[in-house]
């Protein structure tokens, strides 16, 4: 299916970078002609991941770069998120169960639950002192 299309950008470990994330994903979405719903879903998954990384992944007050790479190939979008924080696997955190009533409902782990539901595949590895999270999602054309 031809050459994969690749994109990459860097985010600082600051919550205000969510705006930048949104802008970057919209331009990737435009370049690939992705449906709005698809862009919304990858934005949500990456928002939850990014928010987790900057909340738990760094134990200093320095600026860090979080590198996002996106490749589209043969109907599959592959997103890689790398950071140089402490070894931290966000998807291993407590698995939430869906609440049946409002009293049951706590919010911990909800972001990770959303990521797992929005993406087709998510895995973590520690490589060269970096956390590397890979997310895959089949591109829906409608």
């Amino acid at each position: 299916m031809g050459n994969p299309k690749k994109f990459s950008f860097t985010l600082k470990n600051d919550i205000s970078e969510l705006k930048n994330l949104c802008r970057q994903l919209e331009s990737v979405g435009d370049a690939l002609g992705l449906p709005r719903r698809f862009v919304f879903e990858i934005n949500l998954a990456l928002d939850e991941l990014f928010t987790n990384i900057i909340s738990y992944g760094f134990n200093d007050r320095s600026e860090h770069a979080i590198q996002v790479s996106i490749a589209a190939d043969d109907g599959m979008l592959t997103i890689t998120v790398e950071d140089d924080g402490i070894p931290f696997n966000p998807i291993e955190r407590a698995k939430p169960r869906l609440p049946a009533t409002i009293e049951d409902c706590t919010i911990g782990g909800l972001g990770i639950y959303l990521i797992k539901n929005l993406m087709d595949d998510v895995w973590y590895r520690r490589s060269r002192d970096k956390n590397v999270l890979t997310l895959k999602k089949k591109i829906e054309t409608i």
Partner: protein
Amino acid sequence: MDIVEEKQGVIHTFKIKGRLDSNTSQEFEKRVFDVITNGTKSLIIDFRDLDYISSAGLRVILKATKALKREDGKIMLCAMQDYVKEVFEIAGFDSFLPIVSTLDDARRAL
């Protein structure tokens, strides 16, 4: 995010516009809890112009719903776009949060 507040009788309505995420949820939480603290018991959140919500936004809605319930108050959520509603559904929140189609439906239910 823009937040517009309207008061009609005892009903306080928040019209939220734009993106409700970790960047904007604190401001929204403060505005909602100011109103609850001041004794409002009937709250509507109008999602018509909201384009995006993350778990940080869901957290505020959940906290507000619980706080109102303790005060014997009631919250209604209305006019969600499909994508936004989907987030409530994936999280399982649609099973216990009152979500209706229109602002009029929300007013009638309070």
